[in-house]
């Protein structure tokens, strides 16, 4: 790589690296690194910016000069999308699915993880292995029979038909994250609570639950993001059902909109950029949690 050679020559071996660079302010000695950083950031953000800016242009303008900037800026596309019931219906559907899935995963997951982590009984090990083995069964493999199963249960085409399987498929990860978390809470706490006359369930409610909040938040964020971005399950369960497209979740709604209005590029760009906003906003709020979760995942 050219990168490495220029760095090597830029910092000869006899030039010792400073012990602590943090306090030294700007390190202008490495413009190349800044160039790389700039290019990477531009490539990452460029297409997103293009979509956002395109939403402020007219389709005629876009057709005349696809790479230009908005001139003049028009708010019509955004206003149309924001004024449409369809967009808000899509958002509402996504919110229902994500909140339902997250709540389900957190509640069902912590209950099971509590037992696996802190009860002593025969089959505990087997139970844990069973749930972890679930990682080997991706949704893709189960998707077709799942759709048929939901039909039999009368859940096909409904939000519950997406929420319930989403909870089930999020359980392995959830339990794998929560069990070590719950186990790390010292036994002495439980003994003290028991001496004070608290039942085990009382211990769970009053002590364990508050202490395991960080783990629950991590699990919840993962479930929320997974559900919000999910496409395959809604495609199979909802788009083939009877719900009107005004009540489809965003990923389905956006693809549907872009197919229907493929001639009106500006409208599609506006719809797409508005569909991006919730995920971006959520990421800004939960950034620490998401990236922190990643870092936790690779600490070995």
């Amino acid at each position, binding site marked *: 790589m050219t990168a490495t050679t220029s760095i090597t020559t830029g910092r000869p071996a006899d030039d010792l690296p400073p012990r602590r660079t943090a306090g030294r302010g700007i390190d202008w000695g490495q413009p190349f690194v800044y160039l790389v950083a700039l290019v990477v950031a531009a490539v990452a953000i460029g297409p997103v910016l293009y979509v956002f800016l395109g939403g402020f242009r007219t389709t005629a303008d876009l057709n005349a000069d696809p790479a230009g900037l908005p001139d003049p800026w028009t708010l019509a596309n955004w206003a149309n999308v924001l004024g449409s019931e369809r967009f808000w219906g899509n958002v509402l559907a996504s919110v229902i699915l994500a909140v339902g899935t997250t709540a389900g995963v957190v509640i069902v997951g912590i209950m099971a993880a509590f037992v696996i982590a802190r009860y*002593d009984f025969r089959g505990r090990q087997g139970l844990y292995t069973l749930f972890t083995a679930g990682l080997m069964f991706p949704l893709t493999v189960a998707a077709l029979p799942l759709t048929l199963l939901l039909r039999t249960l009368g859940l096909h085409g409904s939000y519950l038909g997406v929420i319930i399987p989403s*909870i089930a498929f999020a359980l392995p990860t959830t339990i794998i994250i929560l069990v070590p978390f719950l186990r790390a809470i010292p036994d002495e706490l439980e003994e003290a609570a028991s001496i004070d006359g608290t039942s085990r369930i009382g211990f769970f409610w009053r002590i364990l639950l508050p202490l395991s909040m960080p783990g629950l938040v991590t699990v919840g964020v993962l479930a929320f993001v997974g559900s919000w971005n999910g496409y395959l399950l809604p495609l199979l369960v909802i788009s083939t059902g009877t719900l009107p497209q005004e009540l489809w979740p965003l990923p389905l709604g956006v693809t549907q909109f872009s197919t229907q209005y493929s001639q009106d590029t500006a409208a599609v760009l506006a719809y797409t950029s508005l569909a991006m906003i919730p995920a971006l906003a959520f990421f800004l709020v939960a950034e620490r949690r998401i990236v922190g*979760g*990643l870092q936790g995942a690779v600490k070995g």
Partner: protein
Amino acid sequence: MTATLQPAGPATAAGPAPTPGRRRPRSSAARQRIEIVLLVGPALILFLGFVILPVILAAVYSLYNLPPAFRWEQLAEPDRFVGLANYQRAFDSPEFVRAIGNNFLILFASLLIQGPLAIGIALLLNRPLRGRTALRLLIFVPYVLAEVIAGLAWKLLLQPEGGVNAMLESLGLGFLQQNWLADPSIALWTLFWILTWKYLGFAIILMLAGLQGVPEELAEAAAIDGASWWQIQRHITIPLLGPTIRIWAFLSMIGALQLFDMVWVTVAPTVRGMATETMATYMVQQGQFAGQPGYGSAIAVILFFISLAVALIYQRLALRRDLAGAVTRGVR
């Protein structure tokens, strides 16, 4: 993607723990049993009913020739059971064989191109930089977007009259213009580019996180001994980054084999059939939209075994040290 990510972490953190519960009086044994059933019951029912059962059903259905939206009784009808014929048909189908090839092409391209690229960029950025937090946020943006929405954005950019071609034109590179997603000879590579855009940031952030765990003292000591920047990276940093690289590679491979959303959304069905079909898109196409649930289920089972084989082989070859006992040994 995010979901598959976690297993590695907590597993390594899960050390031996004291066995709880011995100090309770025997009389509460019945009560404990009730508590266990009530607490684990919901999770167990959901998991068995909606994860394990469908997978078993897929294996059963794959042995039948079934009409779309069939009823259970129809399994008993004569001539429905076809044995392994669906599997035979899958491996005889040029489309499906090509789909497997496409999955593996994306798998190897990800490992060989995205991997070194992410490591290189992470090594360069692993130093005090002005605006490092902002940079990290920006790099991560593509990963946060839904695959479907990112795919649609790129689909618009890559239209013949879209932004990418227009930009090439204005840079005087008009001869490079392509019908990116509609030309079967390049559609797969266009797709790979979009996937790289979407997931490179994730890889870089992961590598940067891994680099935080590499002690600075080692590099300093090596520098004092006269090692060059490149020698330090090559002989100290990259080897110590090993566990992160191996886990990233694992996630990347599983993701490549399960690839669905991006292909389904960005490439038109006709072009997809010719050039960019993956196992998952072929499965959904045949099983759901072409109304052949039996055949689709056979594809699902094949997809499952291919993923499992890749995961096991990789675990044996590379991940063994990192995940020692993570899934196989369990709680203890």
